[in-house]
C-alpha cells in the first residue's frame, strides 16, 4: 500500500487538529511534572504548520516534512520544538524527492526520526520521554510488517504499543527534561511528551484505517 503526498498533507492536517483538541490535556499532564506548557507550545507550533502549509504543500514529501520540522523548531519554544522539529526534518531527509511512500519508506522515516530525537535529547527508552511511546511503536511496526501484515494492521498495532509505552511512563522516574528535577516524585505521572507522540501515531493509524475502508 502506498501513501501519496496528499495523504501526508491530510495526516499533517489531522495532527494539527488532534494537538489542538488535546492542548489542555497535554498541558495538564505537564503541569504535574514539568512547566505546564507542552500542550500550549505544541499547539502554537502545529497551528503555525497549518498557516505555512500552503507555501510548501506542492513540494515533494521530503521537502514538506523538512519544512514542517523547520516551522516547529522556530515556533514551539519548549524542548518539544527542537525534538519534534528534528524528528520531522530527519524523516524528510530520508524521503527527499519522493511523492509516494511505501512500507519501507515509512519504516526508514520513523527510524531516522527517532534516532534524531535520541541524538538531540541524549535520551533513551526508559527515561520517561516521547521515546517511550515511539520506540515500542517502531519495533512493533517493523515486526508486523515483516510478518506480512498490511500497513493498516501494522500501524494499528504500533499505536497500541505506543499507548502501552505511555502507560508505562507512569511507573518510572524522569531522567530527562524539566521532570527530571522531580526525580522519584515524578513516578505516578504520565509523561506528556510520550502522550503527544502516541496521539500523533494514533492519528496516522486512524487515517490509514479510514483510507482502507
Amino acid at each position, binding site marked *: 500500500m502506498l501513501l501519496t503526498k496528499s495523504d501526508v498533507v491530510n495526516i499533517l492536517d489531522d495532527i494539527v487538529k488532534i494537538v489542538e483538541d488535546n492542548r489542555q490535556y497535554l498541558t495538564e499532564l505537564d503541569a504535574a511534572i514539568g512547566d505546564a*506548557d507542552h500542550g500550549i507550545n505544541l499547539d502554537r507550533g502545529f497551528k503555525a504548520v497549518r498557516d505555512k502549509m500552503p507555501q510548501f504543500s506542492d513540494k515533494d514529501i521530503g521537502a514538506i516534512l523538512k519544512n514542517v520540522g523547520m516551522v516547529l523548531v522556530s*515556533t514551539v*519554544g519548549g524542548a518539544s520544538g527542537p525534538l519534534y522539529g528534528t524528528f520531522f526534518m530527519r524523516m524528510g531527509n530520508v524521503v527527499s524527492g519522493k511523492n509516494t511512500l511505501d512500507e519501507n519508506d515509512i519504516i526508514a522515516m520513523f527510524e531516522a526520526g527517532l534516532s534524531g530525537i535520541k541524538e538531540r535529547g541524549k535520551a533513551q527508552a526508559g527515561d520517561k520521554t516521547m521515546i517511550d511511546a515511539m520506540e515500542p511503536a517502531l519495533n512493533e511496526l517493523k515486526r508486523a510488517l515483516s510478518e506480512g501484515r498490511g500497513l493498516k494492521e501494522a500501524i494499528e498495532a504500533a499505536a497500541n504499543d505506543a499507548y502501552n509505552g505511555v502507560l508505562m511512563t507512569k511507573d518510572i522516574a524522569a531522567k530527562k527534561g524539566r521532570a527530571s528535577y522531580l526525580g522519584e516524585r515524578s513516578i505516578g505521572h504520565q509523561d506528556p511528551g510520550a502522550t503527544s507522540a502516541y496521539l500523533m501515531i494514533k492519528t496516522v493509524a486512524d487515517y490509514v484505517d479510514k483510507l482502507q475502508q
Partner: protein
Amino acid sequence: MVGIVIVSHSKKVADGLYELADQMTGGKIRIGRSGGTKDGRLGTNVDEIVEEIKKCESGDGVLILVDLGSSVMSAQMALEFLDEEYAGKVEIADAPLVEGTIAASVEASIGSDILKVKEVAEAAKNLVKI
C-alpha cells in the same frame, strides 16, 4: 574579539544579564541575547539565536551561554543552521548562565581566544561564593 551570545527562556533574564555583562566589559565586546519566543512566551527561539551569533561574530568566534533544557537543544540546532563559514568557530559553554556569562565576557574583553573564554566560563561552575 570573541563574541558572547546569551540564551535564556526568559527575555527579562537575557536582557538583565546582557546589561550586567555589558557594564562589566564597557562595550568592548559584542554581546548578543535571545530570550523567550517570537510571540513573547517563555521559551527559546532558534532563528533569533542564529541571528545573534551572526551579529556577534567578528572573526574570532562566538561563545553561547545557555540556561536550561531547550536552550541547549535550540543552541545546538542554531549551530547546525549556520553556514559553512561559521564551522568550528561557535561553541556552547557547559556553564552556569549568570556567572559563566560574566566570566566569559570579561575574559573575551581582554582578548583571549574562544577556547580560553569557554574554559573560563565552564570554570565558573566551581566558583565558591561563601
